[in-house]
């Protein structure tokens, strides 16, 4: 229900199954204009599936997806797997975006992410970090009201990751768009994020990262990256898990 007129994207009660397996269970997700929402969670938690449902690339088995009419979405996929026999320069790759792909816009979009100098390079010759920036530039061509980023810092070294997340924060301010992203590295995206959603097939917890990060248990645990998911289970009090990790009592989300 899009009760709040201010929402640009709203998912409610999303269920997705694949065969017998439950991928997403009763997910609610609301995004306001200019809000940065980060989804974190362990591998196989359904993070990418949730993005695909939000984008309309995949249908939910039940639940409701509502996008603001004519919502302009810029999407940055998790990875690009270009065939080595496909000769495509960076500029030509950006031209594939359907809307407003004139030369001036392309140069501008590349400049915004700091890779203008790569325009004539073949896509297959640029580094992982540069590829992520080019993908981000292509997402910007839609003049997006919502940027959807699937692990934007994948394959980027640690310095590059910090820079990339800073860039995303800057772009939000410049373009006045909301951001929905999936990330493994909460400690890197923390300060830029308005809302964190911890996903493990269901929403384990969500809220402002400050609130979350003031918890000493959280701080202690968050140094150890492998304990990321545990950390977020830990300070979440609206439901409990039984020995099998299943939720024992139903929980309500605001």
């Amino acid at each position: 229900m899009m009760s709040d007129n201010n929402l640009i994207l709203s998912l409610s009660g999303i269920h997705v199954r694949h065969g017998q397996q439950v991928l997403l269970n009763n997910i609610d997700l609301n995004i306001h204009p200019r809000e940065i929402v980060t989804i974190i969670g362990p591998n196989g938690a359904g993070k990418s599936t949730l993005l695909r449902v939000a984008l309309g690339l995949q249908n939910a088995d039940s639940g409701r997806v509502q996008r603001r009419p004519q919502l302009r979405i810029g999407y940055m996929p998790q990875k690009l797997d270009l065939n080595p026999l496909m000769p495509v320069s960076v500029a030509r790759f950006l031209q594939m975006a359907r809307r407003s792909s004139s030369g001036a816009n392309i140069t501008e979009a590349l400049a915004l992410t700091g890779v203008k100098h790569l325009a004539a390079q073949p896509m297959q010759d640029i580094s992982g970090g540069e590829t992520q920036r080019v993908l981000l530039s292509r997402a910007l061509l839609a003049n997006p009201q919502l940027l959807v980023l699937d692990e934007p810092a994948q394959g980027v070294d640690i310095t590059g990751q910090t820079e990339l997340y800073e860039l995303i924060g800057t772009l939000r301010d410049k373009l006045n768009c909301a951001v929905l992203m999936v990330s493994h590295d909460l400690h890197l995206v923390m300060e830029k994020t308005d809302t964190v959603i911890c996903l493990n097939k269901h929403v384990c917890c969500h809220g402002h990262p400050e609130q979350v990060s003031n918890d000493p248990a959280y701080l202690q645990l968050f140094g150890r990256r492998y304990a990321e998911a545990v950390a977020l289970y830990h300070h979440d009090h609206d439901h409990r898990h039984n020995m099998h990790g299943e939720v024992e009592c139903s929980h309500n989300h605001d």
Partner: protein
Amino acid sequence: MIDVLVYAAIAGLLLALICGPLGALVTWQGIAFFGDTLAHSALLGLAIGFLLQVNLDLAVLITSLAIAGVLFLLQLWRKGSSLDSLLGILSHSSLALGLVCLSQLEGARVDLSAFLFGDLLAVMQEDLYLLLGVDAVILLLLWRFWGGLVAIAAHAELAAVEGHPVAMLRLMMMLMIAATVAVAMKVVGVLLITAMLIIPASTAGRLARSPEQSALLAMLCGGAAVLMGLGSAWYWDTPAGPSIVLCATLFYLLSQLRPGFRQGY
């Protein structure tokens, strides 16, 4: 006698014209196996044509288009999972079914090798009309939808979010491949059709600097291979279809000697 050569050359060049860009799209998406499946089922179309006693070219064309439609639906149905083994089964069982049906047809004197390896020098003026029609339609569609087809070849989901009609473009591409396969049967034969799609496009992909250049270069490579192969068939009496494919392969090998667009590739 020279007519035979002229018709053969025109037929081969018309085929190279559509195989260039389509082959590039097929190569980029790594879906050569679709071409094989469609090619093998073309033989089934031939058997159906004999059975119903209708125009063979049309029977093959319609069967190929129908099978492309079935493949498209299979792809939608099995979204995300690999179709490899299913396509393999479909491909070879339709080839076998076509061969068995053809062998049982009485009265039809079928020269199987003409269909398996092509019979370019038997192309007649009437054959050119169908080829010309298919060429015109395909080139027009490619011209109109090229941008979208390239976008889905690079990243289909990204293209879908950007508003490209991905399902429609996919279906269109498969129907175009089906039509190409159907008209290519006379030129290079069922077993070598995929080669006409893949080899010139692979040669071009390494040398070209853009998708568009790649498509044009593949047309040129294919055309040159057709003329050379035909020359070989004329002077040395080699089979035309296989000679054309060998010439295309020769270009491919030569292209490996030149430095490509990208470093170290």
